[in-house]
């Protein structure tokens, strides 16, 4: 049951040599799970999954996918190895139709399989079928996110990695996107995502990691994490009341 798909161990990564943003992070994702990475701004959440996806240089540590070492494989190889990444922004080709966006992603599939796979995506995302001739740049935020996810799923990845799929979406679309991810998991796809919207992400997630200063500081079942005092301390950046805090309050210094 607990077959691990993705293992990230002691990963150190960053854009500049000698300035790591991810500092020894370790996470595991089991088959069929939704794993959420939370953390305060600047904790290195996005850098962590971008490093996993081959987009940020890795200086130490390992990434294993189904037991295969995929550490620092080039981004265009990652998708062939079974790791599909959905960036936070600019995740569709804006001046191509929805259909061409899907077709271009089929480049690594056998040619004869592509049409059927595109039809399967249309069946899973009927909105995209209705908009197949629309330029991706003219889609609504939610539909664009759908297209970005469909683009990643079309090649049957072993794990789907998403960077803040709800960023910049209106509340209506946020719930739509999380419902979509929940449905995708039900179809057997393993998901790793980074989210600012902790409450919505924990509602659909199985497990969560809290990342602080480039290292995972806490791991828990998603259902219990929201009520865990640790989340207030680490994720929201608040310190529990200290003994001297009362005096600060008296002088009006406490925030």
């Amino acid at each position: 049951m607990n077959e691990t798909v993705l293992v990230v161990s002691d990963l150190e990564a960053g854009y500049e040599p000698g300035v790591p943003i991810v500092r020894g992070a370790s996470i595991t994702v089991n088959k069929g799970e939704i794993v959420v990475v939370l953390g305060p701004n600047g904790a290195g959440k996005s850098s962590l999954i971008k490093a996993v996806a081959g987009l940020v240089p890795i200086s130490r540590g390992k990434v294993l996918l189904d037991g295969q070492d995929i550490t620092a494989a080039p981004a265009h190889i990652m998708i062939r190895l079974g790791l599909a990444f959905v960036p936070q922004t600019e995740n569709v080709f804006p001046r191509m139709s929805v259909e061409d966006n899907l077709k271009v992603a089929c480049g690594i599939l056998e040619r004869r399989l592509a049409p059927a796979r595109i039809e399967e995506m249309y069946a899973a995302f009927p909105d995209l079928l209705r908009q197949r001739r629309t330029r991706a740049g003219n889609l609504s935020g939610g539909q664009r996110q759908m297209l970005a996810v469909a683009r990643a799923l079309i090649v049957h990845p072993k794990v789907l990695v998403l960077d803040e799929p709800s960023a910049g979406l209106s509340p209506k679309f946020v719930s739509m996107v999380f419902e979509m991810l929940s449905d995708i998991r039900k179809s057997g796809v393993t998901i790793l995502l980074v989210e600012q919207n902790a409450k919505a992400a924990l509602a659909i997630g199985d497990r969560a990691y809290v990342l602080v200063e480039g290292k995972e500081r806490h791991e828990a079942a998603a259902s219990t994490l929201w009520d865990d005092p640790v989340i207030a301390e680490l994720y929201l950046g608040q310190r529990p009341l200290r003994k001297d805090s009362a005096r600060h309050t008296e002088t009006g210094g406490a925030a």
Partner: protein
Amino acid sequence: MSLQFVVDGLLTGSMIGLGAIGVTLTYSILRFSNFAHGDFMAWGTYATLTVVGAIAAMFGKVAPIAPLSFGWPLIVALVVGAAFTALLALLLDKVLFSRLRKQEQAIIAVMGSFGASMALRSLLEFIFTSRPTYFSRAIQIAMPVGFGIRITPDQIALLILTAALVLAVHLLTTRTQTGRSMQAMSQNPALARIAGIDVASVVRVTWVIGAALACVAGVMIGVLVQIRPLMGFDMLLPMFAAAILGGIGSIPGAVLGGLIIGLAEAGAVQLIGAEWRAAVSFIILMAVLIVRPIGLFGVRER
């Protein structure tokens, strides 16, 4: 007034347009202005000329395909020349452009291409001297086709060739997986990688298409006008003007831009005087850009 300038303009425009396709592809996919593109034209033409000479040495004099001024040797030589030009572009990318493109600032690659342009041109003058030469010295009789227009069989053949090549490249870039990958690279290179596109192979295809078309355009000039080491460099500004006029990144735009500039130049020669030739095309370019800064077929960046 004679409508002859229409034929002259379409021919000049075809040469400019074929060259501008390479300029626009290099700009939108490789993200720099390649000033050496004109010299690919000249090198392709001299390569073709050399192969024509080699064929003549091997097979003796070959009769032209009536009513054209050239025979099968030129057609074979053009294919070989285009392949040679493509290899030259790939070689230059390997030793020079690929390194310069890695730099953050595009101007570095642009200046590098300027240097490559001068080196290529000088080398050509060194090998072949700067004296003009010709594929054929035969004079073709221009046939009257009405409205005061006269056209030679060579001109008709080359216009058809241009139309066929433009159509082929358009279909390649819009209907094939390779073409979609090229579009993807020009719209979002980071996402193209994530989507599994092998950037190196898209770069190669871009060079091959651009360089091969430059060779064809150069040979057209060689057949209709003359062959000189400076022939490509002289086409550089009109080619960039055409690419910008049509909207950078757009292949139909580059060709249409080329035709507009070609027609404007030819019209200016007839109506105002030959010394206004270059000025008129740039006045049109500026006028279009004032009304539509992204060019005719251009797309606004997000």
